[in-house]
């Protein structure tokens, strides 16, 4: 395979990751993200009460055995906080993975075909992009029976064109290069060229975009829960908790404070990661060392 050494060197994802990890912001971001993932794994195990258990008078503080008091239904705030991150994190990870995969495939296909297929894909993207992300997700989730799969599909659908456009843009310059032309001339199949020639050369933008989309997926999924469209409305969920407890914020602030802090910390963590990655990528693009 004919690959110019310069391309080999700059676009390797491991290289991008390693360089990004030398930046303090990426280190902090990744640390925060790992800590939050740890919380959502360990949290449900160490939670003293179940997520829907009635333990005492609603909206009370100073209850022995309940660190942060009870929420509007008399459930343990601390337990619901410990449990309430898992579904957000799992759903947003799955939605990001699905949306990024489909978006990458369609973006590469569009860049490689450059004809009616390209035009068709881009117009479909335009239609989906005519909706603010939360609006499309809200429309889909509210019209059908809420389920985790539906939430993932709804968020992935609104993620796909955003990733697809970026990947198409990055791949357009790659498909013009000698090694892709050579592979085409050698009669390699389109799918093979797509995955083994073009994809390895757009992993940089892909990684940056995926990390950015992860932040927005968390925001969209938490916002859906805030609007009352969590897959399970009674289950503990940081977004649901903020909505439920914000009316009684004056007498029992913890029910809203804890999830507000949790979502803020989580999204700042993922935001720091993607900022570190995009800085390195931009640095490489300019020919610098990305430091």
């Amino acid at each position, binding site marked *: 395979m004919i690959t110019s050494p310069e391309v080999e060197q700059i676009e390797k994802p491991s290289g991008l990751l390693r360089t990004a990890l030398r930046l303090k*912001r990426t280190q902090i971001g990744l640390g925060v993200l790992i800590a939050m993932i740890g919380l959502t794994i360990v949290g449900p195990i160490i939670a003293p009460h179940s997520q829907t258990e009635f333990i005492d008078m609603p909206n009370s503080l100073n209850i022995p055995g309940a660190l942060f008091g009870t929420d509007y239904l008399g459930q343990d705030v601390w337990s619901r906080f410990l449990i309430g991150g898992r579904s957000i994190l799992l759903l947003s990870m799955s939605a990001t993975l699905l949306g990024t995969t489909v978006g990458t495939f369609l973006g590469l296909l569009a860049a490689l075909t450059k004809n009616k297929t390209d035009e068709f894909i881009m*117009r479909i993207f*335009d*239609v*989906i992009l*005519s*909706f*603010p*992300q*939360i*609006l499309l997700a*809200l*429309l*889909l989730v*509210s*019209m*059908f029976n809420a389920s985790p799969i539906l939430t993932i599909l709804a968020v992935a659908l609104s993620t796909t064109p955003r990733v697809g456009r970026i990947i198409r843009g990055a791949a357009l310059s790659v498909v013009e290069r000698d090694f892709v032309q050579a592979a085409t001339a050698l009669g390699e199949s389109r799918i093979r060229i797509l995955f083994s020639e073009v994809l390895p050369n757009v992993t940089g933008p892909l990684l940056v975009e995926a990390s950015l989309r992860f*932040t927005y997926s*968390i*925001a969209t999924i*938490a*916002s859906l829960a*805030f*609007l*009352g469209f969590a897959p399970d409305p009674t289950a503990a969920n940081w*977004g649901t908790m*903020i909505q439920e407890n*914000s009316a009684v*914020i*004056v007498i029992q*602030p913890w029910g*809203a*404070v804890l999830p*507000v802090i949790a*979502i*803020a910390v989580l*999204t*700042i963590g*993922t*935001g*720091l990661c993607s*900022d570190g990655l995009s800085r390195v990528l931009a640095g490489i693009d300019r020919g610098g060392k990305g430091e």
Partner: protein
Amino acid sequence: MPILKFIARRLGLGLLTIFAVSVLIFLVTQAFPSDPAQAILGRETTPEALDALRQELGLYRPAITQFSSWLFDIVRGDIGKSFVTQMPLSEYIAPRVGNSLFLMVVGAAFSIPISIAVGAFSALRRDKTFDKTTSTVSLVLAAVPEFVMGTGLILLLSTSVFHVLPAITLIDAGQAPWSDLSGIVLPVLTLVLAVTPYVSRTMRASMIEMLESDYVEMARLKGMSERTVLVRHALPNALGPVFQVIALNLAYLAGGTVIVERLFNFPGIGSALADSVRARDLPAIQFLTLMIAGVYVLMNLLADVATVIATPRLRTSLK
């Protein structure tokens, strides 16, 4: 006139997109759900009630007929009536459009000058303390979801910490939003904080590019004062890419504010949509989504046209 041709072509494309958007909305709300009537009435209902609603919705007609009559009614200006209140939708929506417009204008009036100033100043002070601080702050603001930021502001400014502002807007849909100014401070602040990072980042990047460009160098070499170089040469050219981002953010302010309006109980189109979705008020959901998407498409169109007009290089390359 190549510019008119460009605008006409872009307008045609915009109309096509809106048509496709209306198809998508119809499919999602009316054609794909196995039974919209069931979805509206919920599980505890009688077959008679279901049948009556299906008749009223015209669900026994073929999907194509349902779609075309819905779209033609809207094009004729008849947007139907709400299922829940039985009121004409126009009466329900009209005052809310005004309220959202007010929120959007006030939000834009603060966020656009602030973000352009912050972005341009960060570019001039590149990698100095001001630039580093604003870049960290905007990173945080861009990452945190609006409802989390808004709830944080409520906690900070309307409850125990500093009790200076009301947590929700206490105005009715028909009332002028400026009749309760203290009530709109928090929603506006949340919107400004949500929008500013995007515009200021674009402005910063664009300004840096301009400052490094040949003709800014040239202007300096000609001996122009730094002030003239910045105000007359760098700044106007740096604004081109910023239009795009501003238009997208105006679109966001116009329609994507479902969350912020809901959080602060502000009676605009965003909270109207959130209410309609909860009440499964199908005509309201369909029209409001179409309207918001329409604003989005329109803003994108304006952004493209403004960018071309503002960028001499693009303007002259039009064929």
